[in-house]
């Protein structure tokens, strides 16, 4: 009988697989009915064991368990796939979350890889400072009406406190390498686009000749 942590892990991998299929379907321009059929079939393939373990178990073996932040974002993406034109999360909230995930990943991953003697991953085993910082983030985002950030942080902390997943480390509920890389790439893309816009404004601005001046 699988533990709850295993069920959550399999569910998470299934969400990743289904979200991937839905994204592919949208790119192919599938109508909503066909998209629903596709995601339904993929969901069954992801969860139903065929000759041993289901597809989600294969992905779980390769990539491990996903952070709750990743699952929230992917479920939001699936919601948007079937409700086009409806914003699941506010763009402002997504941008704020991306900033936090990027900052968190840049802090965590290089040091966790062995850069130096101190390992910030260790804070995730219940160090009160990390919980306190996250409380500040949650309260700040609640005041600024960045609900996605508040929700993601609160759900991660609650799941960690309840030992819902396989990990006893809070970091694993907050972020994972793919969501960090996605956030970093998104920020870099936005920064690059802003830079390009700034250059275009600077180079293409038409020369204004004051009225009445002679040349």
């Amino acid at each position, binding site marked *: 009988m699988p533990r709850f942590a295993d069920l959550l892990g399999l569910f998470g991998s299934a969400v990743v697989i289904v979200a991937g299929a839905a994204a592919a379907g949208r790119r192919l321009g599938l109508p909503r009915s066909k998209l629903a059929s596709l995601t339904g079939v993929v969901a069954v393939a992801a969860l139903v064991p065929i000759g041993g373990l289901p597809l989600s*178990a294969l992905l779980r073996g390769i990539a491990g368990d996903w952070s709750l932040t990743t699952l929230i974002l992917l479920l939001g993406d699936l919601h948007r796939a079937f409700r086009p034109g409806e914003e699941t999360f506010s763009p402002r909230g997504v941008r704020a979350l991306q900033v936090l995930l990027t900052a968190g990943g840049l802090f965590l991953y290089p040091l966790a*890889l062995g850069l130096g003697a101190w390992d910030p991953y260790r804070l995730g085993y219940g160090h009160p400072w990390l919980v306190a910082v996250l409380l500040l983030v949650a309260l700040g985002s609640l005041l600024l009406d960045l609900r996605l950030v508040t929700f993601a942080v609160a759900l991660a902390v609650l799941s960690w406190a309840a030992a819902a997943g396989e990990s006893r480390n809070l970091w694993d509920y907050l972020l994972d390498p793919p969501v960090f890389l996605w956030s970093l790439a998104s920020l870099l893309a936005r920064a690059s686009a802003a830079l390009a816009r700034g250059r275009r404004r600077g180079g293409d601005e038409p020369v204004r000749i004051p009225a009445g001046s002679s040349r």
Partner: protein
Amino acid sequence: MSPARPVLAAVTALAFAAGFTRSLHRPSPPSFRVATSAPQAEGRRPSAPGERRPARPRSRFASKTHDVTAHAASLVELGDGRLRAFWFSGADEGTSDVRILTAVFDPLRDAWTEARTVVEAGGLGRGLFRHVGKLGNPAAIRTSDGTLWLFVVTVPFGGWANSAVTGLRSADDGETWGMPRRLVATPLFNRSTMVRGAPFEYGDGTLGLPAYQSLLRGFAEVLRVDASGAVVDKQRLSTPGQGSQPSVMVTGESDAVALLRPSGQPPPRRAMLSRTRDAGEQWTPPAPVALRSPDAALEGLALPGGRLLAVLNDTDLERDALSLVVSDDDGWSWRTVERLEDQGADRALSPDDGRYARTVEALARATDATVADASPYVRSSRRFMCWDERCHFEFSYPSLVRARGGEIHLLYTWNRAYIKHVRFDPAWLDERLADPSNAPLR
């Protein structure tokens, strides 16, 4: 579609109430549990002329299957005084058919049982509800409450940099096992964690599992594992290039010495050593000691009275020599007690050279008096130790246990094809330890 603010505020309040509660109840820094067993006689004088000398070390093969690889043994003493060993075996290291085997040694009968499979990749994957492609090093411990723990390296695909660790528990000394549990030890897809050195106990019942990260140049850690098999803390012993595969020797409630394999070091390599005086909260930066190493696994044991015993390949290049060494000063200096294996003179023989076959035959018969036909040992050794027109010897990956009566038991890989068992009479060891001719290593 974000939740309404009042709902969100309520969820946040609940989350952080639970979070701070959990944080306040996190395991506090523990002390080490010091093993209690028969005291080691100190300062035994060499035998007088005419006096009966202690028995020399006895050996035999723990593994009996030919033409398969056998490697990375881990040994524990069971509740009834027998010993149980675990090792991996298959067509070759890293193949998908590799299993974890186990066998039991009865010291009264001086015999090993036939090995049987305890873990195989497919069954472990089903138990973990995730794909497992292959298996690697086992590491075992029997804790003071009688639970037998077995930790196994697993890989879904690719090489050891893609590894993770799984734990299993047995309440009946290894006859049956509970559901496996994946240890989560890193934030990077939980990858690159491996185990090798013998685990140890903390005073609060949690386990210390020496581990290492195998990505890039690797570094050493200790994972703290609770009774459910979850990692609840970890301590870093080294940074990349400062050594890996730690062997932790607990010398007191707050004191321990860790010997590290010098991974990432350029030759000539020396084993690295780190110390803690606060039960592992802080470890000194690893520093080289006067123990040569060809970048191979080593294992140490703390004896009652503070002596440290270790087994390692004290060579610069290959693993064709193996020595038992001792330190009387907490690892600052070491001296050789006994050269257990030494085939450096026959290094890199041509496969056509009859010397290789004759040497392997002689070594096999010297290891185990029950070996009648040594040709399978030659065949197996050739299979794993001959490549690029040369044949080699390997004696590596030691595992040490001190039994309740004081006898020392050692297992190690023999030519990548067998597991060799050596048992040391405590009286013989005491005599060797007292021998002033064993000069300190430099």
